[in-house]
């Protein structure tokens, strides 16, 4: 029965408060989409139609999967909250540009159906859906997920001690190509010295003119988006700053102790999925801690695991951002519990 049917002069009764800030889930998700647009523009610039193709496939599949799941579960539809759009964009940004469309669609399906809706939809998923989708693809389509299109960036590499063998390897790399982190990992495994990462190369890293996933290469574009998220107060600085500083500190220690086999800290900072991960995925509200202290713990944990995966010689993967965030997602409930704020008026002790 509609209230109008009771009386023409009805008044709304509800518990306080009777006013609201106007914040909404839709607006938060829209802000994340807006913040991803600079990175999308950079992706279009560097990877052309592949970036458009993968982003379209992922977003469309995520939306369709979300709609179908809610329908099947007889729950209210949720595609208008835009969270599926965010998942689709983030997943696409985490894929190699040449990846076949059907694989992208399969990963998107997995992300929405298995990582999100099975748990009850937005708010109930313990792990970041886009990253679960990516992990699924990395295991299922290992070859395609680690193949990079030809690129010229390796031709710029210079060596301190040029001999015939390293020059030949460099030439071969230019053809087979790799991401900077993949290149570094191979060198580490082979026991070879790394090339010199000078400023001109770091500039390419910063702008995104290197091999990598669709939306992860341009640190500049990602930072512009991150600044927007911070300005809109969608995210706070705690997780990204803790994450990035931990990576920097870890890389600096390695660089000081083993200079010939470790990348410079700035190269670590601007390569791989770190910028995308730190600002857009390690800040996913649902799967990360709610307290400020918890956020710092989460960021530091992500930083350590990322660097472990990147730099332990026997490790299989050259990059560890996705796994680091997923592993820390698992700790989120525990971190929340361990970092509760001291209640106003409670004694200042470690344990109450």
């Amino acid at each position, binding site marked *: 029965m509609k209230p109008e049917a009771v009386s023409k002069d009805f008044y709304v009764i509800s518990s*306080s408060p*009777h006013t609201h800030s106007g914040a*909404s889930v839709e607006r938060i998700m829209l802000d994340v989409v807006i913040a991803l647009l600079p990175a999308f523009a950079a992706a279009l610039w560097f990877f052309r139609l592949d970036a458009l193709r993968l982003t379209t496939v992922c977003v469309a599949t995520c939306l369709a999967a979300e709609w179908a799941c809610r329908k099947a579960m007889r729950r209210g539809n949720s595609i208008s909250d835009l969270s599926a759009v965010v998942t689709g964009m983030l997943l696409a940004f985490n894929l190699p540009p040449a990846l076949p469309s059907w694989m992208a669609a399969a990963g998107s399906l997995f992300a929405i159906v298995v990582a999100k809706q099975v748990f009850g*939809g937005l708010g109930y998923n313990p792990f970041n859906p886009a990253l679960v989708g990516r992990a699924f693809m990395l295991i299922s389509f290992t070859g395609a997920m680690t193949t990079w299109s030809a690129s010229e960036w390796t031709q710029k590499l210079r060596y301190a001690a040029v001999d015939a063998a390293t020059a030949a390897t460099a030439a071969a790399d230019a053809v087979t190509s790799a991401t900077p982190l993949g290149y570094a990992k191979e060198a580490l495994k082979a026991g070879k010295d790394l090339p010199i990462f000078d400023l001109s190369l770091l500039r390419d890293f910063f702008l995104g003119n290197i091999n990598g996933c669709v939306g992860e290469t341009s640190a500049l574009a990602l930072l512009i988006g991150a600044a927007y998220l911070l300005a809109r107060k969608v995210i706070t600085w705690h997780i990204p700053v803790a994450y990035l500083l931990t990576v920097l500190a870890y890389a600096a220690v390695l660089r000081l102790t083993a200079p010939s086999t470790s990348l410079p800290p700035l190269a670590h900072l601007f390569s791989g999925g770190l910028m995308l991960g730190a600002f857009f995925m390690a800040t996913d509200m649902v799967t990360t801690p*709610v307290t400020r202290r918890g*956020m710092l713990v989460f960021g530091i944990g992500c930083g350590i695991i990322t660097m472990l995966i990147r730099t332990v010689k026997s490790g299989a993967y050259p990059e560890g951002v996705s796994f680091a965030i997923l592993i820390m997602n698992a700790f989120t409930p525990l971190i929340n519990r361990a970092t509760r704020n001291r209640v106003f008026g409670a004694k200042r002790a470690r344990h109450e």
Partner: protein
Amino acid sequence: MTTIRSPHTFRGGIHPAYNKDLAAGAAIRELPTPARLTVPMSQHLGAPAKPVVKAGDMIKAGQLIGEQNGFISAAVHAPAGGKVAAIDSAVTASGRACAAVVIETDGSAERQAMPALTEWRGVDRKELSARVGEAGVVGMGGAGFPTRVKLSPPSDKPIDTVILNGAECEPYLTSDHRMMVERAREIRDGAEIIRHILGAKCLRVAIEDNKPDAIAAIEQAFADMDGDVAVAVLKTSYPQGSEKQQIYSVTGREVPRGGLPMDVGCVVENVSTAFAVWDAVVNGEPLTRRVISVTGDAVAGPSNLLAPCGTLYADLVAACGGIKGKAAKIISGGPMMGFAVGSLDVPTGKTASGLLLLSAGKVTCFTSQACISCGRCVDACPMRLAPAELSQFIEADDIGGAEGIALMDCIECGSCAFVCPARRPLVQHMRRGKAAVMARRAAAKRG
């Protein structure tokens, strides 16, 4: 007398749209005594007063009509003379029903009051606080705690600081603001009496920095006061008017969990209460009327009315030019902590600082979406609780779990629900959880 910018501000809090300009400029206007008053016996915290008149009695203004009924209780007096029409039941602003004395007023000017007492300085402190109790003075900021009790702390709890609460952090409301601008002198005298009764050396008037005219008026009125007296200018932030948060903002002291302000040597009194204390002690007048802001976008002429306690909301709205357009929600109090009521047939009381009428466009709907763990409620909570987690415990009916993470420390200020992007009715969850805890404790007590 100095003015200090408060060096502390409690952590958390929010900045709602204040909408105070609707009524902030409206000078206090006295409402002519309505033909009929419905005076509730419960206008305070604690046991309702016991009616001491019966239907048909002729009574005078100021006459005792309900006597204090227990330690935490307060006396109720007739705001106007006339005939007791009935001892009826009335639904008060908080939604609870209680006995009410219905008076058909006769407009007679005859008043009954305690003898005036201008030379109160020589009077025993106990006698003064008894006089405050006899006048039925209660905290007028909203909680309605009997002032007599606050003014008689046990001897092992010395009070060194009296804080007059003029923060008025609730959006829309302007009654305390107008009192400070227009009745600063009386508030000053009331403050002096309170300080004297408590033997406190420090007096602070806490005002948010969005009320410069109130700060100026208080500075002027308090200028000649001796001792450690200062206006503490607070950063405008909701809920600065909350007792514990205000004590922290003014003194840097934290009232311990489960404790009272006196545990940290403080007593907080609303500025309007200080006025009532002055009126009771110096003039012998019982508390029977107060200033109430009648405001909101559905009120034709937002006003600050000096109205007898027991005036129906309908009479207040009529005195403000009636309803503008169509009202969708009636709120007794402000939009953050006020109660939505179902009709205008609700009487005012000693704690009624505002009546808010909102149009449909201003009415917010709280749904129950899933929490997205954004953590904004954790940042906003001035008690530093985890409202998201608490609400999930309560939704799952794990009341013990919620109690274990400090559910009972919630002050229901609404900051969490205000910022929640999923628009979860967080305060409603807290209320339900707290009620369940209280019921369980009561059951345990009974054995």
